[in-house]
């Protein structure tokens, strides 16, 4: 009897539900996480140490270079600058004088005109005309004087700076001294860096070996226990990620989803379409357990190839099996930064517990470093690096939409569920989104299941499309098949009265 029960539970709910195996799996995943953690930490620290070393050396070199430059080129530069300012000042002064002269000339010419009308003697007019010439001479003289003063100053300056020019030997001496200093500095700090790297290597290797040993023994135990249980994954075919069987979801008398069954294949982009109120979002909520289905089965095959009955999984455990979702209305934590939003999505990947958090133990710092690095990579992949430290409050809608998708990527997804990703985006953004979805599928090797109203996007991106109306299946197939289907056309456009 006992044996029979065991096999029954294994076949019905998948391997995860057998309690003994579940506990073993948990332990194994804990040790696996630790092993990868120390591996990643080692990489990260070596990168960081090298970077710090480089910047330190660069700063020191730059400082010395600056010292040398001041000694070497100071006088030349000052000369150049002085010459230029001299020229500018002289030009300015000349123009000013010319202007004053022109004003004077105009005044005198007007006076002469007036005098000519009154028939005064020619001598008086000649006197005034002479006056113009005199004024011109006067102003020219003034500019000349100014120029002379300026040039004299410049000569004085050059004589003063003779010491600079003669001091080439001192510059050479300084250069030799600084190069020596630089060499010593680099040698000292390379030694320090090597020591640090060595320490990190020893620390990480020690931890790695310790956890690896435990992991191997646990894996052996796991295989032994698994060998005793007959495996039958008849429920799902090998290449199927998600199987929905006879799913029903009733809200009182409203049949939101009624007897729906379909399968999503591995590495596929699966689209779900239907008119408003067809129950698309309800299907999503049933898969992620936001709504517990009235009846029907939901089977899911995780990365390891084990079949899980999703109805038996709690809502907050869904993400640990690799199912990540977005929301139709943005559900973003707006009080924290964009980066911290991603860290919230990686919440289940932290192995450290509450006490380690409160005491601030080093294990948390190690985990934080590794996960932050991964978050940075994902931000770069999504093109959100610019907004890394911004508060999510008040960011543009398109950025927040992208952030939601980035959040799903942070959760190590095997199946991504997108609820209307193109809602509120313009045409060019929608085109970008289509490329992005394909890129995600190829890069992260996961299946994507999406609901969308934008027919262009769905027909462009999806490999398989399922059309539903009032909770019932209308048609399933490729984009062309769906477009030709008469029932779908009727559901979207209505039936004409003649027929």
């Amino acid at each position, binding site marked *: 009897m006992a044996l029979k029960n065991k096999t029954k539970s294994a076949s019905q709910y998948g391997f995860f539900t057998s309690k003994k195996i579940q506990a073993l799996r948990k332990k194994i995943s804990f040790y696996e996480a630790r092993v990868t953690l120390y591996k990643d930490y080692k990489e990260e620290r070596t990168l960081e140490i090298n970077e710090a070393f480089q910047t330190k050396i660069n700063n020191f070199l730059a400082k010395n270079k600056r010292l040398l430059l001041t000694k070497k080129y*100071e006088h030349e*530069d000052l000369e150049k600058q002085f010459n230029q300012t001299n020229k500018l000042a002289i030009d300015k002064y000349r123009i000013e004088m010319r202007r004053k002269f022109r004003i004077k000339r105009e005044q005198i010419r007007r006076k002469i005109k007036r005098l000519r009308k009154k028939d005064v003697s020619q001598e008086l007019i000649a006197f005034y005309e002479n006056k113009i010439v005199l004024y011109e001479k006067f102003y020219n003289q003034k500019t000349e004087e100014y120029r002379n003063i300026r040039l004299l100053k410049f000569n004085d300056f050059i004589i003063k700076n003779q010491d600079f020019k003669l001091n080439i030997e001192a510059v050479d001496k300084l250069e030799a001294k600084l190069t020596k200093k630089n060499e010593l500095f680099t040698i000292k700090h390379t030694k320090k860096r090597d020591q640090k790297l060595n320490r990190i290597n020893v620390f990480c290797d020690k931890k790695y070996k310790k956890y690896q040993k435990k992991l191997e023994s646990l894996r052996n135990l796991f295989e032994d226990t698994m060998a005793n249980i007959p495996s039958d994954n008849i429920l799902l075919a090998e290449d199927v990620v998600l199987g929905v069987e006879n799913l029903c979801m009733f809200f009182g008398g409203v049949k939101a989803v009624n007897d729906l069954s379909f399968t999503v294949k591995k590495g596929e982009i699966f689209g779900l379409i239907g008119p408003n109120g067809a129950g698309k979002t309800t299907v999503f909520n049933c898969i992620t357990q936001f709504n517990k289905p009235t009846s029907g089965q939901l089977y899911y095959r995780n990365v390891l190839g084990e079949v899980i009955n999703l109805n038996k999984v709690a809502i907050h*455990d869904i993400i640990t099996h690799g199912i990540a979702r977005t929301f139709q209305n943005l*559900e*973003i*934590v707006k*009080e924290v930064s964009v980066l911290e939003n991603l860290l919230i*999505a990686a*919440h289940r990947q932290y192995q*450290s517990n509450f006490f380690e958090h409160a005491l601030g133990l080093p294990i948390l710092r190690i985990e934080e470093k590794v996960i932050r690095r991964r978050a940075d990579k994902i931000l770069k992949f999504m093109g959100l690096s610019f907004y890394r430290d911004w508060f999510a409050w008040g960011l543009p809608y398109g950025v927040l939409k992208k952030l939601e998708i980035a959040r799903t990527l942070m959760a190590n997804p095997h199946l991504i569920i997108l609820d209307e990703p193109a809602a509120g985006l313009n045409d060019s953004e929608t085109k970008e989104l289509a490329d992005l979805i394909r890129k995600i599928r190829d890069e992260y090797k996961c299946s994507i299941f999406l609901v969308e109203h934008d027919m262009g996007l769905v027909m462009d991106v999806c490999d398989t499309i399922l059309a539903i109306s009032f909770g019932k299946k209308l048609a399933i197939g490729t984009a062309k098949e769906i477009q030709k289907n008469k029932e779908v056309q009727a559901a979207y456009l209505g039936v004409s009265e003649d027929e």
Partner: protein
Amino acid sequence: MYNFKNEYLNKNAPRPNYQVKSKLHRVFTNPLGQFALLGVILSLLQILNMMGIIPRDIMSSIAFVCIYAIAAIGFCLLLGYSGLASLGTAGFIGIGIYILYFGLVEWKLAGLLVPFIIVAIISIVLGFVIGFVSLRIEGIYLAIMTLALSEIIVKLLKTIKESSLRISPINLHFFGIIVNKDTIYFAVVVVLILLLIGTANLINSPTGRAMVAMKSSVSAAQAMGISLLKYRLLAFVISTLFAGISGYFYLAYLTSITPATSTILTLSMSLNILGAVIIGGAKSLWGTLFGTFFVYGFQSIFLQNIPFFQENPAFMVMATGFLIILVVMFYPGGFAQIFYNLKLRFKSAKMKWRTHRYGVEE
């Protein structure tokens, strides 16, 4: 003349790296260093008091602020980070008071340490039980529920003993060292600083982030793998634990209270803690500390020294009330928001100076 040189240097030499910071800077920017500094300052005040420089009444009000601050930081974690409103602080403080009294007087336990452990255990257990019952509802209903539960607890405690609770000073000792009013203050400061550091660590860890996520968006938190009940319960238990510790120190410092007339076991206590957290800034530990000081210490330390308020003590309450209204009206984030704005201004001024000195970064 000198300007040319500067210009030349700035053009050709690389700019200094802004990211390089001194070790001292690193110590004072992390919460551990900052709170440790606060602890040193608080204990220095007491040493000055023992030397006779600071008057005794000011010191006692500072001590009460420290004791209330323990309850306030627990409440800050509950309200500001987890978004749960509770009005049950008075009840949990009462539990701390009564257990210390019964431990020392009725059960005749030796020293202050064993009652402390009992207080911690009982408030954690009680927090679990009450949280499990009441955390299935949210918002204002939770406040009503916790208020009712706290009233029940207080009523129960008062039926057990309503006359004055008095501890004889011979019983007050840690590991055989007898403590008086002056020396128990140091224990209060040490516990306050340790709890502050622990809370600050929690806030900056995944646990704190999970709490904020839960407050901001329930469905996002659930989809990201955060168990609502677990983290709500955690925040609630922490707040009850802190309130219990606060009550324990209240009696240990005062040595005798009469529950029938004392205000500490009434609704006004819970409301004062709520007010302190909101005035200070619900999402900031420093703000919470400052808010507690504003509610409990501002009158007795500052306003009492002004001659006008000495003549008419009724205006003192009005003045603090007026200040509270001003702060809440113009700065909804509390004092923390004012300090944050000042910090931003300072930063922008610094950036201006930098651009003036080194030019614009490319």
